[in-house]
């Protein structure tokens, strides 16, 4: 399987570009504490939050234990409602399935609600090549699509852009509308509403993702605040749901438990404005709704995780909470990761799905501060997974040789305390002499990675252990 437009190899360069982009830094700074503070308030106002997390983790683990059973039950229930289930082993198969559905419908325009699987499989580019126009309708997704970019955050796709950049985009692309000032937020919104309303009404096929698939009823569930996912599925003749196979939950009761955590973790809301349960095509006496209903169950690497040590990642409900908590994400933004999935979960999921060969920066570019694990409503041990991926890289002998040699040398010394004591005692005294006058060391070739951007305090003199051994006491 592959992930579309995977550019994680470039991580270091992309991160450097992001760090030197003053406008991006200002935009990202607004993320600081915003989502997370609202999440904290939502969590604090629900005393049972942690207990619900335990239950939710239990539900997800149970599903992963019985994924085949529930997928088959879900399929039966969808068919009983008059819908069709398609299975796709990888991205290519998923693209082919969707294209075929669009062709069968004679579609020329497709509207889309937010779907991360679509980003994974690169659906828009593919449909475009086939002469079918795909229009993103979530406001953030619409903005990044106009800009020819990909989303930089799971739940806030255009978080890297400010109003000035967005109004410039709208002024450029909305030819039949008057130009807007950057501070006319209401005007920008009205323009998007008007442009996209026309798109909804004209669409032949509507594609959405799914936050949950309910095995009991065959319903697909989407969670949105804008209502775009609803107009997408209600106003076009064909509703296609793209979903990873791990989105299954057994019952409506189980979905209710997870819903209590999803919006609180994502945006700090009790519930998002719209939570929509869709089952099959419109009934014969319905006034609206699609004439046909298709669910595409996408594997694309997920079964590979199922039997392995990183299986916990399949519990992820894509709330984006770990991105909001991540100090690395806050500095480099989502695009630096070069994957549809960014932030801590992206750093863990991308190599797990696509392999480490071209993604090895991602698990390494973390201070392992642990804040992501602390806030994750699915208790995914993200730092542990990142560390395990580093381990996998080291075992394949793929980690950077300089770092490896250094650590080997250090470990040989550190495993023999007396060698360690003699060597360090000499070295620190030498370094202390070099740095005493200024308090920090001169920029030595070996310390360059540190001293290019920071001073390195010099050792104070002899090591503690040598002084202690010499009988010195406080």
């Amino acid at each position, binding site marked *: 399987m592959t992930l579309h437009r995977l550019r994680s190899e470039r991580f270091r360069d992309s991160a450097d570009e992001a760090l030197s982009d003053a406008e991006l830094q200002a*935009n990202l700074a607004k993320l600081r504490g915003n989502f997370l503070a609202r999440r904290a308030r939502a969590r604090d106002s*629900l*005393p049972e939050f942690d*207990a619900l997390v335990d*239950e939710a983790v239990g539900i997800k683990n149970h599903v992963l*234990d*019985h994924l085949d*059973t*529930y*997928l088959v039950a879900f399929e039966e*229930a969808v068919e009983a*409602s008059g819908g069709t289930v398609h*299975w796709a*082993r990888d991205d290519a198969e998923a693209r082919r399935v969707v294209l075929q559905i669009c062709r069968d419908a004679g579609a020329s325009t497709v509207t889309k609600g937010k779907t991360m699987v679509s980003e994974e499989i690169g659906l828009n580019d593919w449909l475009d090549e086939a002469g079918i126009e795909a229009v993103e309708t*979530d*406001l953030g997704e619409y903005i990044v699509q106009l800009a020819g970019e990909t989303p930089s955050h799971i739940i*806030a796709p255009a978080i890297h852009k400010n109003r000035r950049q*967005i109004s410039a985009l709208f002024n450029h692309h909305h030819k039949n509308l008057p130009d807007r000032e950057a501070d006319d*937020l*209401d005007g920008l*919104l009205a323009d998007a*509403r008007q442009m*996209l309303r026309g798109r909804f009404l004209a669409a032949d096929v509507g594609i959405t993702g799914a936050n949950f698939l309910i*095995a*009991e009823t065959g*319903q697909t569930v989407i969670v949105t*605040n*804008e*209502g775009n996912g*609803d*107009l997408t*599925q*209600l106003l076009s003749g064909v509703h296609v749901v793209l979903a990873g*196979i791990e989105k299954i939950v*057994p019952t*409506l*009761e*189980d979905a*209710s438990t997870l819903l*209590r955590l999803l919006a609180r973790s994502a945006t700090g*809301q*009790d*519930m998002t*404005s*719209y*939570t*929509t*349960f869709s*089952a*099959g095509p*419109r*009934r014969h006496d*319905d*006034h*609206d*709704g699609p004439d046909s209903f298709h669910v595409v169950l996408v594997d694309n690497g997920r*079964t590979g995780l*199922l*039997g*392995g040590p990183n299986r916990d990642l399949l519990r992820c409900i894509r709330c984006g909470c770990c991105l909001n908590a991540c100090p690395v994400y806050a500095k480099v933004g989502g695009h630096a990761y070069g994957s549809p999935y960014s932030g801590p979960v992206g750093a863990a999921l991308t190599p797990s799905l696509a392999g480490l060969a071209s993604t090895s920066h991602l698990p390494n570019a973390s201070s392992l501060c642990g804040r992501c694990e602390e806030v994750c409503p699915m208790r995914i041990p993200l730092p542990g997974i990142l560390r395990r991926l580093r381990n996998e890289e080291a075992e394949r002998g793929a980690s950077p040789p300089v770092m490896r040699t250094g650590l080997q040398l250090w470990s040989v010394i550190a495993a023999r305390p007396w060698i360690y004591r003699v060597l360090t005692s000499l070295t620190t005294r030498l370094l202390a002499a070099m740095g005493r006058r200024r308090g920090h060391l001169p920029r030595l070739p070996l310390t360059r990675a540190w001293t290019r951007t920071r001073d390195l305090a010099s050792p104070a003199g002899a090591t503690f252990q040598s002084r202690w051994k010499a009988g010195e006491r406080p």
Partner: protein
Amino acid sequence: MSDARHAILSRIREASLPGRERDATARLRRHRRNLQPECARSSDAELIDVFVRKAEAVQASVVRVAGLEDVPPEVSRYLRHRNLPAHVAVAPHDDLESMDWAAMTITAERRKPLDSDHCGVNRAFCAVAESGTLIMTSGPDSPSTMNFLPETHIAVLKESDIVGAAEDVWDRLRASGRASAGSLPRTVNMITGVSRTGDIEQTIQTGVHGPRHLHIVLVKET
């Protein structure tokens, strides 16, 4: 296509641990509730107040009236108050059809909404106090587009239809024989406040695609 199905299911079975439950499908029939937080367990006396408070907290407006016959006057008052034309699309629901709209000089068209409609009125299946959420189910008496197309959405809700928890909704659906595959409404909408977005600089803006205004007329009569 069936190749893919077979391959995916085989991969799952290869990866699955021995010792798992033989028949997990039993869970699908039990409908066992998980932990119900305190906020989902309002007493009957509190249900209405909790619902109103929660709905208002997400920018819905709520007005309580004594009976169904009071709905058109309230809608009329609301439209005048908001300076909107006295022209509404009304869902073809029995409760709404039997109302005397003309007496209030409201033009009420009983049909699904059009893009040009400013205001739509429909009847809620029920509501959840826990989160101030309206439950709308699609059917011949309730086009789902009524919840999304008009900029102003007026929902008529009976007090006796307010339940404590989301799980109570599923019980109601099951009791009405509409919760199994094949009998489900095509669309069940849980609506908690108005359409909103934070996609421009995380500034909350309302009415992005769906309604900018949600007005709930809460009817006492049972």
